[in-house]
């Protein structure tokens, strides 16, 4: 669940207010957005992806809030991880666009499994459903 709007980084663009699909944030005139409805957070992490200032932190647990220490979080790379690994913003130029590597992973995983178990391996059709 969403846990932090990191005050020292937030630039008050209110993009999180706009893009949150479950309307978790409220804009505050002259101030940083606030987490107004934490219980409505669906833990999709998309606010982090859209935040240009790496100023948001979503905790890993989708079932209950887990209060965190802001200083401890800003010492990690977690708030910027999703945006960096997706190649958004300033990460765009040097991001490897190798998402099609999934085409390699599907046969690779099937081959690893086919070699080791007694149960018959499913064809790619049965397992592609999980390949999203």
């Amino acid at each position, binding site marked *: 669940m969403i846990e932090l709007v990191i005050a020292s980084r937030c630039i008050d663009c209110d993009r999180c207010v706009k893009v949150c699909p479950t309307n978790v944030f409220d804009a505050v005139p002259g101030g940083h957005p606030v987490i107004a409805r934490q219980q409505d957070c669906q833990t999709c992490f998309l606010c982090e992806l859209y935040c240009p200032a790496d100023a948001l932190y979503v905790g890993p647990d989708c079932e209950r809030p887990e209060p965190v220490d802001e200083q401890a979080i800003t010492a990690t790379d977690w708030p910027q991880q999703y945006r960096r690994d997706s190649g958004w913003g300033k990460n765009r130029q040097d991001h490897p666009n190798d998402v099609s590597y*999934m085409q390699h992973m599907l046969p690779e995983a099937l081959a690893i499994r086919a070699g080791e178990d007694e149960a018959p391996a499913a064809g790619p059709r049965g397992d592609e459903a999980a390949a999203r």
Partner: protein
Amino acid sequence: MPDHADLTAGVLVIGGGLAGSWAALSAAQQGADVILVDKGYCGTSGVTATAGVGHWYLPPEAREAEVAARTRAGGDLTEPDWMYRTMETAWQRLPELDPYYRWPFRDGQPVRNTSVRGPEYMRVMRARVRRAGVTILDHHPATGLLRHGDGSVAGASGLRLQAGGTWSCRASAVILATGGTAFLSRLLGANNNTADGHLMAAEAGARFSGMEFSCFYTLAAAHSTMTRAFPFMYGTYRDCDGHELPFASFQTGLPMIAKALIRGPVTVVLDRMPRQTRERLPHVQPNFLLPLLRSGIDPFTDPFPVTLRGEGTIRGTGGIALTGPDCEAGVEGLYAAGDVASRQPIVGAASGGGQPNSAWCVASGTWSGRAAARRAAREPAPSTGSDPRRLAHSFVGPGSSAAPGSSSITASGTGTGSISGPGSISGRGRTRGTGSTGGGWTDADTEEVRRIVSRELNDLDKNMFRTGEGLRRSLARLDDLWTQLPARARSGPENPGPENPGSANPGPPGTGRDALRARETAALIAAGRWVLSSAIARPESRGMHHRVDAPDRDPGLTATVRTWGLDEVMTAVEPVREPEAAGRVAS
């Protein structure tokens, strides 16, 4: 009194996920005046936005074999003409993204069929929809349809979550693209998918098919939403006794993991993933590692507990039974695109997750968008000068919304749903007076009601391993919740139902959020009752639908289960390819 926005459009699209954005784009490209309303934000709403999607993207010469394989996997419930049309439309339309979306390249060619990055795809779709001239209204959930006196759809109305107050939009055509529902299983990106469109369609008289095929599950780390499941192919699984589970594939492995999860915790470690794949994983599925690393787990060396998240009708099959090739929803002026529509014609009893469902969003969005634009050119929207209350007066409340022609159908009312084969029809449930406003759960109870519905439709022992007895027990529980529905949840909070026809827009009591929650909860209960009734009507096992008490396929049920109705839920078993035939038998 809160503000009210009074809007008019040629085409109103409800829902801005993958199907809704293709529908809005397609309608606008035909010259229609289009408004798209989204419960959240067009770009992050819907299950595509968090996913890495593939498309059915096959050259013509590869399609025949694909249709044959899918028909077999889908338990012979598919309709090949729909499959070919879907593949062809996706084949024609996807290259249109080339100037906007950065496909990966291989051997100098764009790779368009697999692992399309959901957030980027939806960002591109939003931009294209806007550039095509569509008005996008984010945080504008729809809560009810407006209808003409003859029952045809005249628009919709809903709430303005951020601006406050309500909106109504008169339109020549309405496209429902509200997605499937996972019954709040915490499937990634699916919390807004609460079957709102299903409920609105049912109130207008639409029917559903394939709702029993709603028992597909996806792995995630326990307590996380992260159903980007492919890396789990590389896992070593252990049950609560520490015994290794012989995982070979998702197809055989998931039921085994489910049985172990019913007994106790199951752990996985992704130790079989080769080093070069581990290194590239963050760029292939950029969100997969987020919850793990934040929990202090190195998934390649540390065993961690897993859970199974229900996919409901999302990677299930069921939805609004379309009545024509342009995605007509069975009500004049209403269309359905994407996961809110039944995908039984293209995938049968098997999951359409992976490639068919995404292609279906492209194709059904295209067809419905173009057809809605044609209708708008033919039949102008109710004029801006007309009194919205005239439309409101003609709103047909759910209490009188049995499907057209239902007088020819006998309702047994026994609650057991006896089925003897194609053509037979049974009804169940209780009828409630339309004017009843007494009792009902309150806003304070809503969260608990939602938890109950989620458990009845997601618990592994209830929904993955089904029995007639268990399904009837779940259905009785949901029937009971339905009879206690607060009046405002029944007809849409800002819609004057039959209870108060005099006030056009009284405004919902409480905040928009609470009003929306009540309405969503009604939709979840209704959709749950259609799922359970359909599963009861199919006492056999086929595709993803597994009845412990009927483990074999019954050739007599190579048929479509249709369901409809609100106070009284009806089911009918009909031949797959002649939908009119059963109606003739019934009358």
